[in-house]
């Protein structure tokens, strides 16, 4: 029981970190960034290259992953999202193509086979039969720290409030003097950074492989849909629902069915309550 | 031929906001009524509820004494009521003729496949609203605002309504275009069409209506002859207060 609780908390913390960057884009820019998973892919491989292959310090590897993710976010906004001018279908499709493109770039550079990331902090602690690798614990704690600072940032800084304003009503925000383009670009950069850092943790939790962008994308989608858009707290709560659902399914039903309930949750929520569990009711 | 519309105790809530607050009125067959009120008074919301685009929270809507609240939009159109929109949004990649064709299409998949379009009827409808034959092949992006409103009227007329709801038909039009549309509405009135018209252009509205209804903040504040309603204190206050 305690074992399930521990595993659930570790996994959910990671899921929250994965989903939050996606939530930001979906609520501020109102677009579905299907290439979101690619930030995790690129982040993970960047860390692998710098820290594990070149032997740079681990912190530098994480920082470089963040920087590259940030640059990727800005590029994506400037080269794809802006030229398509809010054409949602076109953005969805071009980000999907971009994700496949980045996947093949990774295959080209690093090859097709899985890579193992060394634990960021080696060591394991055993509590009530559950193994707690320090690396995973660190990932969960880091993800909480990042989420709380993000929450504080959105609530208490000028930039954060501007982001909230744009997310609620882009036109209204423009009238009150907020430069929506600038806010959008900032959000894309932030989302890219968060995604890439999440990628390092995700890969150290699991593994690095070129197809690793799909699973976190689905998790992010699930969290955003179930939680409703625009809420960091909602993201956190639903990440725990999804995380615990997976752990409970693997532990008590069958490990193969692990993702099934997440999918069912997405479908049921979307059909039954399209605005999500914690979303605002739209006029 | 003409339809009768009856609204009874209509209420629509969006979350905490009451957009329509216990509104009742009747449009007799062949009658034309102007629906006036300041911005955000809830005029378009009433149209949406009549058409079934929004479901009312409570109250009844009747066409010719039949409750239509449970019908879908296409079924209501079949019952005889059609509307136009404040901002005309035609099918952008289709020609004028094809836009009208959608209105003429029967609501049966089988008939859509087996029966071809009727170009003569398309032309007839286009000409009846004052569009020229050579405009049939144009794309909506090549039309003026006035022509877009005419196209919208033609597509709505294609559904063979017995009552029309016109939403801000004069917005964005030149004086000449207003005259053309007015004449068109007048001639349809002569043919017995029932009208409910929303317009900010009160001068253009006046000659087209028999009576007027004023609403503010979702509530009916006055009804009666056009001049009586315009003279009403509450109505004047609502306009002054809002603008």
């Amino acid at each position, binding site marked *: 029981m305690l074992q399930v609780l521990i595993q659930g908390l570790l996994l959910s913390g990671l899921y929250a970190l994965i989903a939050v960057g996606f939530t930001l884009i979906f609520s501020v820019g109102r*677009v*579905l960034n299907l290439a979101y998973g690619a930030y995790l892919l690129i982040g993970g491989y960047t860390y692998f290259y710098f820290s594990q292959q070149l032997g740079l310090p681990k912190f530098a590897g994480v920082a470089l992953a963040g920087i590259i993710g940030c640059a990727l976010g800005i590029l994506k906004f400037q080269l794809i999202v802006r030229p*398509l001018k809010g*054409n*949602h*279908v*076109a953005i*969805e*499709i*071009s980000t*999907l*193509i971009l994700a*496949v*493109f980045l996947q*093949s*770039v990774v*295959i*080209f550079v690093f090859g*097709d086979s899985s890579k193992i990331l060394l634990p960021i902090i080696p060591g394991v602690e055993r509590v009530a039969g559950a193994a707690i690798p320090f690396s995973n614990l660190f990932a969960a704690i880091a993800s909480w720290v990042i989420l709380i600072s993000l929450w504080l940032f959105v609530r208490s800084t000028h930039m954060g409030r501007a982001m909230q304003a744009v997310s609620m009503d882009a036109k209204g925000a423009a009238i009150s003097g907020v430069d929506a383009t600038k806010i959008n670009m900032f959000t894309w950069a932030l989302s890219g950074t968060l995604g890439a850092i999440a990628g390092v943790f995700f890969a150290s939790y699991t593994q690095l492989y070129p197809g690793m962008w799909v699973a976190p994308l*689905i998790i992010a*989608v*699930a969290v955003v*849909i179930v939680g409703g858009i625009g809420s960091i707290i909602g993201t956190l709560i639903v990440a725990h629902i999804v995380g615990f659902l997976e752990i409970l399914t693997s532990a008590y039903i*069958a490990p*193969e*069915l692990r*993702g*099934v309930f997440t999918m069912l949750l*997405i*479908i049921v929520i*979307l*059909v039954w309550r*399209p605005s999500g569990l914690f979303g605002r009711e739209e006029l | 031929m003409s339809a009768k519309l009856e609204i009874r105790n209509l209420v629509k809530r969006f979350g905490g906001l009451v957009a329509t607050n216990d509104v009742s009125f009747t449009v007799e067959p062949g009658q034309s009524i102007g629906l006036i009120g300041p911005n955000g008074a809830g005029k378009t919301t009433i149209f949406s509820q009549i*058409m079934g*685009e929004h479901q009312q929270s409570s109250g009844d809507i009747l066409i010719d004494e039949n409750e239509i609240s449970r019908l*879908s*939009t*296409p079924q209501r*159109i*079949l019952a005889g009521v059609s*509307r136009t*929109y404040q901002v005309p*949004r035609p*099918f*952008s*990649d*289709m020609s004028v003729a*094809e836009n009208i064709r*959608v209105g003429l299409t029967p*609501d049966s*998949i089988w008939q*859509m*496949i*087996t*029966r*071809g*379009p009727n170009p003569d009827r398309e032309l007839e409808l286009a000409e009846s609203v004052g569009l020229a034959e050579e405009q049939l092949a144009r794309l909506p992006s090549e039309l003026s605002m006035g022509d877009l409103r005419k196209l919208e009227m033609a*597509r709505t007329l*294609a*559904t063979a309504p017995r009552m029309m709801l016109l939403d801000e038909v004069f917005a964005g039009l030149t004086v000449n275009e207003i005259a053309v549309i007015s004449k068109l509405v007048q001639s349809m009135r002569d043919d017995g069409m029932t009208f409910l018209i929303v317009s900010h252009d009160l001068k253009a509205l006046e000659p087209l209506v028999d009576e007027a209804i004023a609403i503010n903040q979702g509530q009916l504040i006055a009804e009666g002859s056009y001049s009586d309603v315009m003279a009403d204190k509450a109505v004047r206050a609502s306009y002054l207060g809002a603008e």
Partner: protein
Amino acid sequence: MGLRWHHFALWGLFAVTLFVLPEFVSRGTLRTLIFANFLAIFAISWDTLSGRTGYISFGHPFLIGIGAYTTAILTKRFDVAMEISIPIAVIATMVGGLIVLLPALRIKGSYFALVTLAMMELIYQLVQVIRPDLTGGTRGMSGLPTLTRGAVNGYYMSVSLMLAIALTTWLVMRTRLGTALSAIGMNEEAVSGSGLSVTKLKMAAFLFSAFIAGLGGAVYIHYLGSIAPRALFDINFVFTIIVAALIGGAGTTVGPIAGAFFLTFLLEYLRPYLPGAERYMVYSGLALILYMAQPKGMWELFFQGIAKFDRLGRRE
């Protein structure tokens, strides 16, 4: 329907060209053409639903998969003849798809895309767990009966199917049904405001799309002789179908065919130079550039070119 003699002449020419092709090209090229034909069928199916009505389906393999799995299981596990199992598969695709996706049709835009994506992932995971003795689990099944042997026969089978589907789709889309479906993609509210039941139309588009997907999927696996869930319910497969339709030109019938042929041949021609994964880099990079340059597809580029040319001609 506005049919003119030259329409039939062009279709006839197209068909004749495709039918005499085996006389001129190698068997290897025919094999490539077979895959192009199947991709064209899937792209037409996707386009019927998504290209026309604007409801983007990211889970189209879900439909193809129902058809493919139904006939695979029937023939492999129950020894049903293909002549019976394929029609059953088509019906199963239409019915199964409708039951599952009907609720999804009431949600719009990005959310519809997400539900279909989730649906595909769900079915992928379920195929592995529910009755793996029937479905073959994650590994799928091989050694299924095949409809034809040899490149030439396979080519004729696939090209006939593709042409029949393309011509039918083209004819149906020229009727007022096609007009109404395209109208949904432009302004759904106005379609219902014109007295047409949008739900009924979407259902018609969906059933038509499912019919093609089920038929294509069933015949496809009886051409391949094997079925593998990982390749079928794969986001890369979705990607290929969507890109074929979009690169060619969504909302048209010839667009998806042109897109499918273009992409399949691009991949095959790159094989001798870039045998490995680099091919997909070139492929997806090119797709991204083409799509960003003209979201309406090559078809639209072509028309714009003609229009420009016409205008130049008129000026002189």
